[in-house]
C-alpha cells in the first residue's frame, strides 16, 4: 500500500522543477480535501504568479465531523506529507510553509512536529505551525487564508483567490495533506499512488480509515471495516456535503472519483457513512441540518437564515410529524439557497438535504412524531 502501509522515512528528495506540474496533470491528480479540484491547475496558477514569495498552506484542518483520514495520515506518514509540502515549495518557489492542523488533532500535530525536527535546517526554517479552529468551514481555502492573515477562520469573497492574493497577500497554495502525500508519492516512485484514503463510519464493525483503490466497491470497504454491524438502510457518500444513496444501489458502486462523477456523485472528503435500518433517516437528516446551520459563518443572509429555516423545518417534520407546508418549504428553500453564499457552505448543505428529500421521500412524506432520541 502506497500511503498508510509503508514505512515513513525521510530521505533527500529528488530534484524537482516546474515540469512536475505536467506530470501531475498527466496523472490527473485531484484534490482530496473535498472539492476534487485538479491539482495541476492550482499549482500552475500559483507558479505563474510566484516571485519567490509564494506561501504553501498544508491543510490538515479536517473539520468534517466524521472524517479521520487526514489526521490518521499525518500521524502515520508525517514525512510523506512534509515531502509534498517541500516539493510544492520548490516547484512554486515558496518562501514559507504553514502547517494548518486542526486544533484538536493532537496526535497528528505531534507527529508532524517530530518529523519536522528531523528535517535539515534550511528546509525547517521555512515552516511555521498554526492551529486551525475546530469549525466546519475552517478548512475552506479562503477561511484558512483569512485565519492566517487576520485570525478569523471565516470565508471571504472570491476573487481575489488565494492563488492571486493569499497569506500576506502573496500567491498561496492551500492543499489538503493527503493531496500533498499523493504528489510526494508521485515524485518518489515516478507514478501516482493507486490508492486513496477514506473514512468508513456508522453501522460497521470497525469504523475508521481505510486505504482503497479505484476498484474497491462500497461493499468491499464495508468488508474491510469488519462487515456490517447491522442491516443498513442507506449510505451517505462524501460526508455532510455528500449524497444519500439507497443501500441496495450502493454496494456495487466503486470508490473511483471519475466513475462516481458519472453517477452524479462525488467522493468529497472520502467519508462513507452507513445508516442502519434502526435509525430514522428523517431525524438523522434533521440533526445534520441543525449542525450545518450552526456551522454557518453567519456572514451571508441566505446561508445564515436559510440553513436555520431549513433545519427548523426538518426538525418540525422530525418531531411533530410530516406536514405538506414544511415539505413544500424544504423543496423551495433548498433550491433558492443554492449558489447564494460567498462560499460553498450553503450549497453543500442543500445538496445533502436534496438527496435526503429524494432518497427518503416516502419517509419525509409519511413521518410521524416519535421519540427522536432514538436518532439523536
Amino acid at each position, binding site marked *: 500500500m502506497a500511503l498508510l502501509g509503508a514505512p515513513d522515512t525521510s530521505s533527500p528528495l529528488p530534484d524537482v522543477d516546474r515540469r512536475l506540474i505536467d506530470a501531475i496533470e498527466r496523472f490527473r491528480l485531484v484534490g482530496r480535501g473535498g472539492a476534487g479540484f485538479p491539482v495541476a491547475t492550482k499549482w500552475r496558477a500559483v507558479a505563474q504568479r510566484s516571485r519567490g514569495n509564494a506561501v504553501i498552506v498544508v491543510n490538515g484542518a479536517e473539520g468534517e465531523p466524521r472524517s479521520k483520514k487526514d489526521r490518521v495520515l499525518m500521524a502515520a506518514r508525517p514525512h510523506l506529507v512534509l515531502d509534498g509540502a517541500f516539493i510544492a515549495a520548490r516547484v512554486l518557489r515558496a518562501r514559507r510553509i504553514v502547517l494548518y492542523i486542526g486544533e484538536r488533532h493532537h496526535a497528528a500535530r505531534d507527529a508532524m512536529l517530530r518529523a519536522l525536527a528531523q528535517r535539515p535546517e534550511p528546509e525547517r526554517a521555512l515552516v511555521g505551525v498554526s492551529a486551525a479552529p475546530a469549525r466546519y468551514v475552517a478548512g475552506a481555502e479562503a477561511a484558512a487564508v483569512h485565519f492566517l492573515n487576520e485570525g478569523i477562520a471565516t470565508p*471571504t*469573497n472570491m476573487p481575489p483567490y488565494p492563488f492571486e492574493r493569499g497569506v500576506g497577500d502573496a500567491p498561496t497554495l492551500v492543499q489538503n495533506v493527503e493531496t500533498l502525500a499523493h504528489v510526494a508519492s508521485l515524485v518518489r516512485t515516478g507514478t501516482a499512488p493507486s490508492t486513496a484514503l477514506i473514512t468508513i463510519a456508522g453501522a460497521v464493525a470497525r469504523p475508521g480509515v481505510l486505504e482503497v483503490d479505484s476498484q474497491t466497491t462500497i461493499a468491499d470497504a464495508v468488508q474491510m471495516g469488519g462487515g456490517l454491524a447491522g442491516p443498513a438502510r442507506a449510505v451517505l457518500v462524501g460526508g455532510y456535503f455528500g449524497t444519500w444513496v439507497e443501500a441496495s444501489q450502493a454496494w456495487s458502486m466503486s470508490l473511483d472519483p471519475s466513475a462516481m462523477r458519472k453517477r452524479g456523485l462525488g467522493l468529497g472528503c472520502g467519508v462513507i457513512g452507513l445508516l442502519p435500518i434502526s435509525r430514522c433517516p428523517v431525524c438523522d437528516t434533521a440533526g445534520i441540518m441543525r449542525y450545518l446551520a450552526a456551522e454557518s459563518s453567519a*456572514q*451571508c*443572509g*441566505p*446561508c445564515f*437564515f*436559510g440553513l436555520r*429555516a431549513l433545519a427548523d423545518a426538518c426538525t418540525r417534520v422530525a418531531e411533530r410529524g410530516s406536514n405538506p407546508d414544511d415539505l413544500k418549504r424544504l423543496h423551495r*428553500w433548498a433550491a*433558492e*439557497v443554492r449558489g*447564494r*453564499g*460567498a462560499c460553498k457552505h450553503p450549497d453543500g448543505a442543500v445538496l445533502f438535504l436534496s438527496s435526503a428529500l429524494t432518497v427518503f421521500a416516502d419517509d419525509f412524506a409519511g413521518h410521524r412524531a416519535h421519540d427522536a432520541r432514538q436518532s439523536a
Partner: protein
Amino acid sequence: MSRDLQLVVDRIKCDGRGLCAELLPELIRLDDWGYPILTNGPLPAHLLPLAQRAVEDCPVLAIALRRMPTPR
C-alpha cells in the same frame, strides 16, 4: 456579445434592505428572509438605467454591474 452586463451581489455585504427588488422587480425578487434572488443571464438593455439606480442606491453598496465572463 462581449458587452453583456449582469448584476452581481456581494453576499457578505448584503444586509437584505430590499431596495434593489423595489427598483427592479423585473429581475430581482426577495427570498423569505428579505435577501435578493437575481434572475440569471445578461441584463436587457432597456433595464440598464434601473439597474444602475439599484447599484447606486443600495445602502450598503452590495450590488454591482459586471461584464459577463466570456465563455471559453
